[in-house]
């Protein structure tokens, strides 16, 4: 039997037989094929109503995820009651944590929704001066807790199913190639991707981030972490986009009192003027990113 010399690294055996290598290659190939089959079968189970377009990326909604989960036999268990958090402004949040399993694979997923989400708290009333319906915010007490709780549960189910089946991060090309679903058939949601373009931060928003920028122009090189708040947030937003977590980014903005921009259909970090709030949102986003990245690593290992 021919033997191939393999350079020793990370504690791996120095020698692998060609049979072993072939076996590994075959397994890898089979795994890729299996993943593609899962993707294909999952896609064909859905219809346009199951999808939305988030900033140009396809997003499988809970209705679609449930269908796919039923077909593939995804099981789950929720060990504890959801966590309820009440914020100072009266708004509240529910968080569900569940263990999803398929055959011998298990993963953990978290689902969160807040009463501050426009879906729950935006209502419309007739404005005779403008001669049209204008949005207004429902007070937190008037928001149905059952709806928010149910939505957090749905969010958890959707995340769990799409993660365990590996059908996150799909592209419109893949979907349009394998199904009759077209991008223009689904509802489109645009988050504040370009919120940092052409918009000035409010004057009250001047803080150490902005000051750092001013110092830079005077020739004093600022410490790396002291970028303007909007620049830092733009970077973080990009990172969230990379890990497909823009909805979580938006949720964080909502919690930290960002204002809703009707034109952009998004919460904008430029509107967070309070220094403490800026720090809070920054810290919570960084913490969240770290958790997501660690989880991704674990999932890859699995």
């Amino acid at each position, binding site marked *: 039997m021919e033997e191939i010399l393999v350079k020793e690294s990370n504690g791996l055996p120095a020698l692998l037989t060609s049979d072993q290598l072939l076996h590994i290659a075959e397994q890898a190939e089979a795994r890729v094929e299996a993943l593609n089959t899962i993707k294909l079968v999952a896609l064909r189970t859905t219809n346009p109503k199951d999808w939305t377009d988030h900033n140009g990326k396809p997003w499988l909604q809970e209705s679609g995820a449930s269908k796919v989960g039923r*077909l593939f*036999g995804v*099981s789950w*268990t929720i060990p504890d*009651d959801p966590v309820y958090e009440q914020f100072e402004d009266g708004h509240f949040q529910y968080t*569900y944590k569940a263990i999803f399993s398929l*055959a011998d694979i298990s993963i953990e997923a978290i689902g969160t929704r807040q009463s501050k989400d426009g879906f729950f708290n935006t209502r419309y009333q007739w404005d005779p001066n403008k001669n049209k319906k204008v949005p207004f915010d429902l007070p937190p007490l008037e928001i*149905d*807790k*059952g709806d928010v709780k149910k939505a957090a549960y749905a969010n958890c189910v959707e995340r769990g199913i799409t993660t365990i089946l590996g059908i996150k991060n799909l592209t419109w090309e893949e979907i349009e190639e394998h199904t009759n679903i077209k991008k223009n058939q689904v509802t489109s949601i645009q988050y504040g991707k370009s919120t940092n373009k052409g918009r000035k931060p409010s004057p009250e928003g001047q803080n150490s981030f902005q000051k750092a920028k001013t110092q830079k122009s005077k020739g004093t090189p600022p410490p790396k972490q002291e970028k303007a708040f909007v620049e830092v947030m733009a970077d973080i937003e990009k990172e969230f986009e990379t890990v497909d977590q823009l909805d979580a980014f938006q949720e964080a903005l909502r919690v930290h009192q960002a204002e809703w921009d009707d034109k952009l259909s998004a919460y904008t970090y430029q509107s967070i003027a309070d220094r403490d709030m800026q720090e809070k949102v920054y810290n919570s986003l960084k913490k969240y990113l770290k958790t997501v990245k660690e989880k991704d690593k674990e999932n890859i290992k699995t």
Partner: protein
Amino acid sequence: MIVEKIEELKRSRIEQWPVRSNRASDLGHECLRYLVLNRTRWQEKALHDVNLQTIFDEGNLHEKAVLRDLEDAGLNIIEQQRAFDWPEYNITGHIDAKLAVNGNVIPLEIKSSSPFMWQSLNTIQDLYNGKYHYLRKYPAQMTCYLLMDEKPEGLFVFKNKQTGALKEIPMPLDYDLGEKLLKKAEEINAYVALGTLPDCIPYDEQICGDCAFEHICLPDVKRDALEIQTDPELEAKIERWFELKPHKSEYDSLDKEVKAQLKNQDKIVIGDYLITGKMVQRKGFTVVDGEYWKTTIKTLE
């Protein structure tokens, strides 16, 4: 624009009401935990969507239309939407109407259904053994009315939503079911009084999958993982099976039609075809109890 306006209207009709009693229409629900949650945590029940509200509205329209037709046909319809209350068991409900005929008064419950469902419902057993759990709740609902109104028999009128055709299914009072329902009502009342909850039922896709309390009940969702097979030869056979299936259905339907028209014709010619027929004696036999594997093939879409 029209559709959005209508949807807005339907959405405004989605309401949530306090649940202070065991509703006759719900008492047949197979999950005791659901029934207790419905009494104690009704505020947290997820509201149904516009699609379901549209179905409810359609049902109400059909109910009114059927009652009007029955009256126009000269039938004596009385006590429409009469409310019932049984304080001892805390059961409440309201019957669609009553039919007064030959000195008898019969509780009447009107249901509308899809053509396919309508076709499959012919006897009260079809409701007891209904494929969907909402169908299995109907006998319980009627039993409550019969017990509360002390009547020996009730009548279901089913309307085919597509054709408008009606079908009546009588239901005699089922004392066994009545006993079970009263016991169930007592159990619910006890849980409500104690502020406790019964355990989850084993996960049932039909009951738990669309439950409005799923986010509170938190059942363990247990399913068997799907097996994905690769067999190009079998796949090709299934593809061909699908191509032929519509022709088989057409053939069967035509065969039935043609044979019915040619019944009792000994020998005739039609166009290029000679047709002969004869009576054949068939030997009767009884199919013994057993089991068989039922395979269903459908497309993924």
